């Protein structure tokens, strides 16, 4: 009967969100509390369900709750049905857990905002949608959540939409996500057309009998979807701009949860990708490119949130890479996802805390020496930092190390390429994160006198502390006895650990990775500790740096390839519609008018010319009769 509880996971925050939105200003006083309570209750339900699952044997842990028959047309039958299994419970706990922490954080962070109630309504809406995403038992149910989080993301990025750039950022995120949705839509269509079902179970059953070409097509479409949602190459451009949203949003949606939905999608679709090697190859390529892309972009960012966003992109690249590496990779990808959820959310909240103390300044070049003023923030942020660069025994070390190892062991030239990309990415990660730490917390102060940096209130640092604990401990907990791998086994069914001969033994890989991290740190130290940091970004930099600062020209490329041609196409079509199509319509009218005014000239007003015409007509008729009766 516990399965009947699943729906409350979603219903509680959804209801709370509706209440907050519909009640209006009257709810301003207690809105944030209701929102937080809703999220926390959802977490409570999730935790209870988790304990229930733990009590079951591995094969019986998955629970399904059918709510009602949603769409039932011909052979297209989709139930509104929820599936809670080992994979989704991970996400449920992450979403509601981190979500609740961020709700608590936001109570304080948004306390001066007039629209705090609305903010909490959106957050709750997001929680509900994200839970639906991970709990849906079919691709179509997932799709609803998928777009729901897109909507919530749009609303939250544009939360301060009175600033035009923020509104544009929101729109950009939504539209680029829609490109991803296109992939998801098509994947569902192909799946239905070829297998006659859209539920995970049905497709899992049908997949072995389906042709590889079809599965590859579905896989590629799913990859597009994942790329859109998870800001993977080539649909990555929206994530940096998405930092326009309030910082808790960046922490929850654009770091810990929503952007990782792509990883969930690929992991969930493991039965498709496992049978479609080409699609899988594309997945790892996209992952590898993005992990480097994000890391490179991160090295040149002065905006602390954008630096973290680039880092998110890069870390998700790791996850996608892991998920693309086949059966064993899924678990590592999820593991990295969870650890990343802790440390990245923690760091984002730390960044928010810094901004909170610095009059919402985001430029790291205007920070410096904040360690003394914000000790708790520094410690929590620092722990997150150690976790992300992969220093043992922090969480990131375990998860990232696994992915690097799996990549290296992928076999052949592919393994070497992917492995080196991952290793190089680790070095870059160490570099840019060290840079963030140095610029923000150490060195000399570079801020104006107007700023009065101070430690944040407890409601803000408490969640940061909890997340910091997570970043410290989670990696160890997950890997202890391969806990997570075994937990996920029924879902992703990893075969033997490593189908290929191990390229390098694990210990060597770890050492290599650590070396890379050290190299990264030392370069950063050399560049930013030994030399003074300018409070304005230097202009006399190499062309490469400039390109990196412009996000490797991603916006320029999008503009040149899609936006400008699109705009001119729109303009052309508008004028074609007016001139050619409507012109033809109006032309018919003008022709009638024109021929009328020409014919009018025959109307001389002389009765006699009219009668002459009648006579001619009569003669013509007689002629006609004459000819016919000939």
């Amino acid at each position, binding site marked *: 009967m516990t399965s009947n509880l699943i729906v409350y996971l979603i219903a509680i925050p959804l209801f709370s969100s509706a209440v907050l939105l519909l009640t209006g200003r009257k709810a301003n006083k207690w809105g944030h509390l209701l929102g937080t309570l809703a999220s926390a209750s959802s977490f409570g339900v999730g935790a209870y369900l988790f304990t229930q699952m733990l009590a079951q044997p591995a094969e019986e842990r998955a629970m399904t709750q059918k709510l009602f028959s949603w769409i039932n047309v011909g052979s297209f039958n989709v139930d509104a049905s929820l599936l809670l299994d080992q994979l989704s419970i991970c996400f449920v706990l992450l979403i509601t857990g981190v979500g609740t922490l961020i709700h608590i954080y936001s109570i304080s962070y948004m306390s001066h905002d007039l629209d705090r109630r609305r903010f909490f309504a959106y957050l709750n809406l997001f929680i509900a949608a994200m839970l639906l995403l991970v709990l849906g038992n079919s691709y179509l149910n997932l799709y609803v959540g998928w777009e729901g989080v897109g909507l919530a993301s749009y609303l939250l990025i544009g939360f301060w939409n009175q600033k035009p750039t923020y509104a544009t950022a929101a729109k950009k995120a939504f539209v680029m996500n829609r490109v991803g949705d296109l992939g998801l839509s098509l994947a569902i269509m192909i799946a239905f057309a070829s297998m006659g079902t859209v539920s995970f179970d049905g497709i899992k059953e049908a997949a072995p009998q389906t042709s590889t070409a079809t599965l590859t097509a579905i896989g590629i479409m799913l990859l597009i979807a994942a790329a859109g949602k998870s800001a993977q190459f080539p649909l990555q451009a929206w994530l940096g701009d998405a930092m326009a949203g309030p910082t808790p949003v960046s922490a929850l949606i654009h770091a810990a949860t929503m952007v990782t939905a792509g990883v969930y999608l690929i992991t969930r679709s493991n039965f498709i990708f496992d049978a479609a090697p080409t699609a899988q190859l594309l997945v790892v390529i996209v992952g590898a490119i993005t992990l480097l892309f994000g890391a490179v972009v991160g090295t040149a960012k002065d905006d602390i949130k954008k630096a973290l966003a680039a880092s998110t992109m890069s870390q998700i690249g790791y996850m996608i890479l892991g998920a693309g590496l086949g059966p064993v990779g899924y678990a590592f990808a999820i593991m990295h996802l969870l650890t990343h959820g802790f440390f990245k959310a923690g760091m984002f909240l730390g960044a928010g805390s810094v901004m909170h103390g610095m009059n919402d300044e985001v430029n790291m070049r205007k920070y410096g020496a904040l360690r003394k003023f914000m000790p708790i923030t520094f410690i929590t942020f620092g722990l997150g930092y150690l976790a992300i660069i992969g220093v043992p025994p922090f969480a990131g070390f375990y998860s990232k190390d696994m992915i690097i190892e799996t990549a290296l062991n992928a076999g052949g030239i592919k393994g070497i390429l992917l492995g080196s990309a991952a290793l190089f990415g680790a070095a870059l990660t160490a570099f840019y994160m060290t840079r963030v730490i140095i610029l923000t917390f150490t060195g000399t102060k570079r801020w104006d006198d107007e700023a009065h940096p101070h430690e944040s209130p407890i409601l803000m640092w408490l969640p940061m502390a909890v997340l910091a604990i997570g970043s410290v401990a989670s990696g160890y907990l997950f890997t202890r006895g391969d806990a997570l791998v075994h937990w996920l086994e029924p879902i992703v069914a990893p075969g033997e650990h490593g189908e290929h001969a191990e390229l390098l033994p694990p210990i060597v890989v770890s050492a290599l990775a650590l070396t890379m991290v050290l190299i990264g740190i030392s370069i950063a130290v050399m560049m930013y500790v030994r030399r003074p940091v300018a409070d304005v970004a230097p202009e006399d930099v190499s062309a490469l740096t400039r390109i990196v600062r412009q996000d490797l020209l991603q916006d320029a490329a999008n503009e040149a390839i899609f936006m400008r041609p699109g705009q001119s196409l729109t303009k052309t079509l508008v004028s074609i519609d007016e001139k050619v199509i409507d012109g033809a319509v109006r032309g018919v009218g003008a022709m009638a008018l024109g021929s009328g005014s020409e014919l009018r000239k025959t109307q001389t007003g002389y*009765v*006699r010319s009219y*009668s002459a015409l009648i006579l001619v007509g009569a003669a013509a008729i007689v002629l006609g009769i004459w000819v016919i009766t000939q």
Partner: protein
Amino acid sequence: MNSANYLYLSALLFTIGAVGVVIRRNAIVVFMCVELMLNAANLTFVTFSRINGNLDGQIVAFFTMVVAACEVVVGLAIIVTIYRSRRSASVDDANLLKR
């Protein structure tokens, strides 16, 4: 004698009447030409009445006469009205309907 001769005559008179309507300018003459055409038509009816051996044609001719009378009465009244305002009975002078 072949009754068709009357038909030929009728056709000729009708045509002449039609030409008259077109080329004469005096409204009264135009009207007279119309009368000529009506009469030509009447002749046809009468002739066919004889050919077919029943009186229906004559009835129609009779009706035609009545209609012609109506037409003359109204038409001439119009001519008088126009003449009163324009001091002319020429149909070319009443050309307000032109573009």
